[in-house]
C-alpha cells in the first residue's frame, strides 16, 4: 500500500514539475510596411484579413498576407487564436473559397521570419505574422512597423496573440 502511495506521490510531483517548467508560448508579432498608416488591429479585423474579407488597406494598397509555412508554431498559433481552428482546416477554407470562384486571398508563404520581414519591407501592402521572441527577432524588424493587437504590443503581458 505504502509502495503504491509513494509511486502516486512521485508521479503527481513529476507532473507538477513538468507543468511548472513549461514556458508560456512566445508572442506572435503582426508587422506591416512602415508606410502603412495602420497602428492597431482587432480580432475581427485579423479574422477578415486571413479569410479574405478585407482585401485593400484604407490607403488603397492591396493587402498581401504573408504567413509561415505549414507546421510552423507561428502559423499554428495565429490560426488557433484568430480563427479557432487548425491549419489544415484553414487551408481547406481557402481552397473552398477558390473553388467557389471567389478571388483567392493574396497569400504568400515564406520559410523564415527574416524572409517575411524583408517581404513586408519591400511590399507596401503586405502584412506578416512573425515570432516576436526577442531572441529570434529578425534583423529587418526595425525597418517594419509592429501593429498592436487589441491595443497591446507583443511585449505586454496582456498580449493575447501567442
Amino acid at each position: 500500500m505504502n509502495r503504491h502511495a509513494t509511486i502516486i506521490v512521485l508521479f503527481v510531483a513529476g507532473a507538477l514539475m513538468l507543468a511548472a517548467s513549461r514556458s508560456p508560448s512566445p508572442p506572435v508579432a503582426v508587422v506591416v510596411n512602415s508606410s502603412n498608416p495602420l497602428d492597431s488591429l482587432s480580432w475581427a479585423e485579423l479574422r477578415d484579413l486571413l479569410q479574405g474579407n478585407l482585401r485593400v488597406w484604407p490607403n488603397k494598397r492591396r493587402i498581401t498576407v504573408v504567413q509561415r509555412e505549414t507546421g510552423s508554431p507561428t502559423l499554428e498559433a495565429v490560426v488557433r487564436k484568430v480563427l479557432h481552428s487548425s491549419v489544415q482546416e484553414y487551408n481547406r477554407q481557402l481552397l473552398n473559397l477558390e473553388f467557389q470562384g471567389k478571388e483567392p486571398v493574396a497569400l504568400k508563404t515564406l520559410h523564415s521570419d527574416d524572409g517575411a520581414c524583408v517581404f513586408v519591407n519591400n511590399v507596401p501592402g503586405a502584412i506578416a505574422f512573425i515570432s516576436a521572441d526577442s531572441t529570434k527577432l529578425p534583423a529587418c524588424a526595425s525597418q517594419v512597423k509592429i501593429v498592436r493587437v487589441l491595443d497591446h504590443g507583443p511585449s505586454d503581458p496582456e498580449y493575447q496573440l501567442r
Partner: protein
Amino acid sequence: MKPAEILSRYWRPIVLACVGAGGLFGAISATLDLYDGMGEADALYKVGVAGLSIESDLQRYTQESRRTFVYALTTNDPNVQLPYVLQARAADKSVSTLYRRFAGLDLELESKKLLAQIEDEWRSYLSVRDEVISQILEGRGPEAARLERSSGVPAYEICANDLNTLKQHLDAYAVRQLAHVRILYYRSAGKIALLILATLAMLFALSKLADLRRSNQKLTEAEKVERERSAVLELVSQNRALPEVLQAVKRLVERQRSGALCSISVLEPTGLRCIAAPDLSPEFVRERDIEMGEMTLEASHPIGTILAREARWTTSRASDGKEMQACWFTQVRSSDGRILGMVAFYVAHCRRPQEHESSLLTRTATLVALAIEHRQAAEQLAFQALHDVLTTLPNRAMLHEQIEDALSSESNQSLAVLWVDLDRFKQVNDSLVIRPVTSC
C-alpha cells in the same frame, strides 16, 4: 682698375656668368613648372582617373541594381525572389555611396550639374523600380513587367545615357589635363636642359675666373720676384758686401719657395763657409756643408739630395717647429767652371726636388755665382789699380794715396819718408821684362 678695363679683360667670364645667372632663373622657373605639373597631375588623378573609376563602378552597380530584380520575374516563389530583391537593394546602397564619393571630387561645373541631374534621374527610376519590386513580390508578374517596360526602362535609359555623357566629359577632362601635364613636362625638360647648359657655362666661367686669378697672382708674384731680383742685382752693382748680397738672395729664394730654408756657403781656402745661414742649428748646417762638400755632382745631374732617412741625418727643426726632412743642394760655379760655393734648400718633405724646385735652385746658384764673381772682379780691379801688374808691388798711386791718408790724419804723430833712388833701374827692368816676351 677701370670698369672699361675690367670689361675688356674679363668680358668672357662676365658673359658666361650672366648666362649662369639666366640659368638660375631658368631653374627656378623649371621648378615652378614642375610644381604646377605635379598639381595638374594630381588633379588629373583625383578628378579624371578617380572620376572615371567611380563612374565605371556607378554604371556597373546601376546595371546590377536593375538586372538582379529582373531575375525575380522568372519565378513566383517569394522565397526565391527575395534574394534577388536584396541584391538589388545592396546595389542601390553602392550607387548612393558612389554618388557621395563622386560629389566629393573637385569636378568641373558642367560635370557637377550632370551628376546632380543623374542623381535625380536615378531617384525617379528607383521610385518606379520599387513599385515593380512590390508587384513582383505580390505575384503580379505581368503587371510588373508592363510597368518596367513602360516606365522603368525609359527612366533607366535616361540615367544610363547621362552616365555615358558624364563619362565622355571625364574622358575629355582627362585628355585635356594630360595634354596640359605633358606641355608642362616638355617645358620643364627644356628649361632643365638650358639649366644644365647654363650651369656648364657658369662652371666654365668660374674656372676661367680662377685661371685668371691664378695668372694674376703668378704675374704679381713674378713682378715681385723680378723687383727683388733687380734689387739683388742693384746691390751687386753697388759693390755691397757679399754677406749683404747673399742674405738678400736668401730672402728672395725663401719667398719664392714657401717653407724652404735657404743656405748659401762660399768656398774659401779653408773650406766652405756659410755666409747666409738658414734658421737652423749651426751644427746641423755645418754637418750638411761637410756632407755636401764630400759629394760629387755630375754635370748631367747638378742637383744633389740628402734625405732625413739617411744615416747621418740628425733631427733639426725650424723656428716654426717644422722638422726638416730633406736637403737639396747644388754647386755654385763660375763662368769658367770653378766651384765658388754651395746653395742648399732645407725642406720639411722627405723627397727629391721637382722640376720647378730644381730650376729655382739652379737659378739661385747662377745669381750667387754672379754676385761672387762680381765681387771677386771688383776686388781684383781695386788691387790692380794700386799695385804693379808685373811685380805686384804697391805702385805710385798707392804711395800717393797712403801719403794723403797720412797727411790728412788728425793724429799728431810725425811723418817720415824714405826715398830710395836706383840708378839705371830702367835698363834692368827693360832687359829682364822684355826677354821672356821676345823668347815666345
